């Protein structure tokens, strides 16, 4: 006798799954109104993804004196378009095709979301949270569809067998269905869009709507679309209706009136691994009073008009008073797309250890620090006594950097330009040479009283003469021209012409302390038929430009992977800390720490050097590991990944440190 074979779907406890999903939100949001915050975020994100023209709106409304329903409606959206299927087989076939225009089918199915980075949503989590928000684990929906102008309605609920079930109907039957289910609260939908009725919403959601928390959550999460597109979002507690506004703290004009200092850093470049991205803007605001509402403090990371998460400013830059800086970051689409892959399903955070998130965060840290210096929240230059050990710091950094360079780490990625291996411009027969540009000593630092040779030489090795303008100038960081020379020249074939300042004495009057650029430009004043590699045709208006940098009375920006810098902080937790800075990892050592303080006298310089070497290399390898973990192409810690036993990380770092320290006695 053949054994009986049972075939069917594996039974699932969807109620339990729902609870697990809700727990994910609760843990991440961590406050008593977590469900209300999650609900508005997913509902608005669904509504916004369904099309947002000028008339777009969204409404949350408690229905009935006992709040028997919470209605959420998006208007002037696409509605639940797509096939009105007849049976399970047809539905399965629609889902398998993965057609993104089949909104109705996807709305009624679990884990079949077709949403991509172009939308805000992920894996249909919103529906789960609607369901969980009902004490009866049921919500009804109806939709006036924009494509076919017909009407559909139905429900999603957890049945007595703990499985999630759906009902769906259309046309007149749908109207009858909704009237029956929602009773006196039913009214026809006037414009295209979708509406859901959450039956017996949970108490915490009702309270959040009544006490104004819900509108605050909306303003906190969706201020960008309200600000940019005038998005109309209202919340009605059954009596009063409130419209979500842009919080005053995110309005530039009002910030200025209140005495806050806002600053926009637009269009920033971000280099991450082999990819290049752009940040639309980092907007930072300094509030000297420090009375920014708790819900808005920190840096909001925006994606698709939604605030995904807020990073504590104090944690990003470990300096006193940093909590007074807040703001937001907007990304260009390519970066949003890459970040979407690192976003959690609840839209509440990113995986910051992976690229490009890691590099984005480093860039944000740098920007905040620069801003903090501008608003004088932190000191921009160290006092003289803290420059005393500069030579030791540089020597040790050089040792570490040389070692790391050999294993492929020459600096943090961020804004660093990748070498392309193209020919140097010096090999081209018409060029400007800076071989005669010479500073005192070997470094790029120049002090007052020293002389430099600021000379640029135009070399013409072509077989023709050229008529051109030659200009040479020196500018400071802000673009102010400190010195300039310009002349119209006839550049005869085979001839070189120098321009600039020979044995120029650097004075305080001409060169305030700072970074400078020495530039030289040749602009042709006639057309020729010559074509040169990289330069192209030598025609009227064509420019050849070269530049080099130097610093006056300050050290030039560091090259290499790490550099050391002393800090002064009474905070007991600050011993050795790090921060990114334009392609370099700055290792900060706290001179107020008793252990380090003992090493500061000049006679103990050798001990300080030893200390920096021993600790610096650990920090450096820690950062190498962070880079490797975030990268698709790890170079040193190829064996360390997300699943690595965290208790083994320090010993693993020490293995690499040991190899480095082997060369010292």
């Amino acid at each position, binding site marked *: 006798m053949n054994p009986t074979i049972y075939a069917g779907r594996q039974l699932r406890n969807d109620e339990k799954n729902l609870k697990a999903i809700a727990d994910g939100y609760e843990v991440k949001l961590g406050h008593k109104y977590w469900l209300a915050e999650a609900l508005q975020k997913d509902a608005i994100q669904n509504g916004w993804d369904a099309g947002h023209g000028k008339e777009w709106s969204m409404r949350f409304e408690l229905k009935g004196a006992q709040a028997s329903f919470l209605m959420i409606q998006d208007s002037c959206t696409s509605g639940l378009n797509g096939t009105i299927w007849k049976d399970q087989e047809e539905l399965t076939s629609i889902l398998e095709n993965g057609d993104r225009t089949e909104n109705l089918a996807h709305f009624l199915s679990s884990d079949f979301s077709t949403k991509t980075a172009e939308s805000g949503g992920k894996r249909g989590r919103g529906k789960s949270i609607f369901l969980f928000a009902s004490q009866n684990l049921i919500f009804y929906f109806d939709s006036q569809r924009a494509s076919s102008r017909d009407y559909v309605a139905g429900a999603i609920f957890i049945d007595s067998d703990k499985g999630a079930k759906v009902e769906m109907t259309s046309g007149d039957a749908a109207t009858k269905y909704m009237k029956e289910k929602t009773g006196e609260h039913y009214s026809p939908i006037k414009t295209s869009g979708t509406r859901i009725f959450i039956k017996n919403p949970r108490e915490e959601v009702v309270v959040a709507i009544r006490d104004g928390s819900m509108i605050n959550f909306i303003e906190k999460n969706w201020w960008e679309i309200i600000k940019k597109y005038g998005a109309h979002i209202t919340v009605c507690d059954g009596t009063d209706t409130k419209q979500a506004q842009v919080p005053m703290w995110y309005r*530039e*004009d009002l910030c*200025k009136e209140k005495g806050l200092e*806002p*600053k*926009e*850093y*637009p269009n920033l470049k971000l280099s991450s691994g082999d990819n290049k991205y752009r940040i639309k803007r980092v907007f930072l605001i300094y509030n000297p009073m420090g009375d920014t509402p708790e819900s808005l403090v920190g840096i909001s990371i925006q994606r698709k008009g939604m605030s995904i998460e807020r990073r504590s400013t104090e944690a990003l830059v470990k300096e006193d008073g940093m909590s007074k800086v807040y703001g937001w970051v907007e990304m260009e689409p390519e970066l949003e797309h890459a970040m979407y892959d690192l976003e959690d399903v609840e839209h509440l955070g990113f995986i910051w250890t992976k690229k490009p998130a890691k590099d984005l965060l480093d860039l944000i840290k740098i920007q905040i620090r620069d801003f903090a210096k501008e608003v004088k929240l932190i000191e921009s230059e160290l006092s003289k006594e803290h420059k005393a050990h500069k030579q030791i710091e540089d020597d040790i950094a050089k040792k570490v950097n040389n070692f790391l360079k050999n294993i492929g780490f020459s600096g943090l990625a961020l804004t660093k330009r990748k070498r392309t291996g193209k020919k140097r411009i010096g090999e081209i027969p018409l060029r400007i040479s800076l071989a005669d540009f010479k500073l005192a000593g070997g470094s790029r630092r120049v002090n007052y009283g020293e002389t430099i040779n600021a000379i640029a030489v135009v070399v013409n090795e072509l077989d023709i003469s050229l008529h051109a*303008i030659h200009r040479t100038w020196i500018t400071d960081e802000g673009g102010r021209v400190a010195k300039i020379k310009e002349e119209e020249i006839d550049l005869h074939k085979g001839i070189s012409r120098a321009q600039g300042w020979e044995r120029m004495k650097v004075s305080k009057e001409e060169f305030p302390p700072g970074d400078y650029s020495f530039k030289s430009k040749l*602009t042709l*004043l006639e057309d020729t038929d010559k074509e040169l590699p990289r*330069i*192209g045709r030598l*025609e*009227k*208006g*064509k*420019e*050849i*430009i070269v530049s080099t940098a130097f610093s006056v009375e300050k050290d030039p920006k560091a090259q290499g992977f790490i550099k050391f810098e002393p800090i002064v902080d009474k905070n007991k937790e600050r011993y050795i800390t790090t921060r990114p800075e334009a392609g370099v990892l700055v290792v900060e050592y706290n001179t107020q720490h008793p252990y380090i303080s003992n090493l500061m006298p000049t006679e103990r310089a050798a001990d300080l050097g030893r200390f920096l070497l021993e600790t610096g290399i650990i920090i450096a390898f820690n950062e190498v590991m962070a880079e490797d973990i975030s990268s698709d192409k790890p170079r040193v810690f190829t064996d360390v990944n997300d699943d690595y036993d965290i208790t083994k990380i320090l010993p693993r770092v020490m293995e690499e440190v040991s190899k480095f320290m082997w060369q010292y006695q």
Partner: protein
Amino acid sequence: MNMAIKLRRGENFFYAPVTGLLDKKEQKRADEIYTSAKNAVEKLNKTRRSGTIDILAGWHLRGVLINQIIQKFGITETEKKYFWMMLYDVSGMTVPDHIRKNDFHVASILANYPLKRLQEIGAWSMWREIIGSTKIGNDDRVARWVVDYIVEKKIKTRDQARPLLMAVRNRLKRIDASILSSGELANKLQEVVIKNN
């Protein structure tokens, strides 16, 4: 005559660029420019309060008002850098890092065209991206040539405009257009059209 623009630094005012002492006449001119700009901003705010104006129309109107001021006071190219900064200040907006790439400059160029024609082609964001490009926006002649071309060819979207913009940028790469006569510049831009047809 020293040309100057009145700018605010905190609670105080100063005149930029500082090219020597200003006489009363020069200072009066700078003050009048400032007042005209403030009045223009107020006029615009009133129009916006009436609630009938879209973003492109708003910036077009700004451009018209700006051009009236430029023409009335004969604001020079040297002064313009500071003039844009002043406009940001009186409008209560943050000055962008690269002041030459600014919305007021874009508006000033667009104001030379009928609003309706611009609206037929694209939104403010498209125009902003087109003229905001450094190579195009830095020379009014290039910007006007690009806008003329887009209007004439009825290019409707940013994506459609991109190949043209890229070709213009590439053609003018490493070229100082400011030393070219209008005829020489037009010839170079014409090469872009021939190459792309």
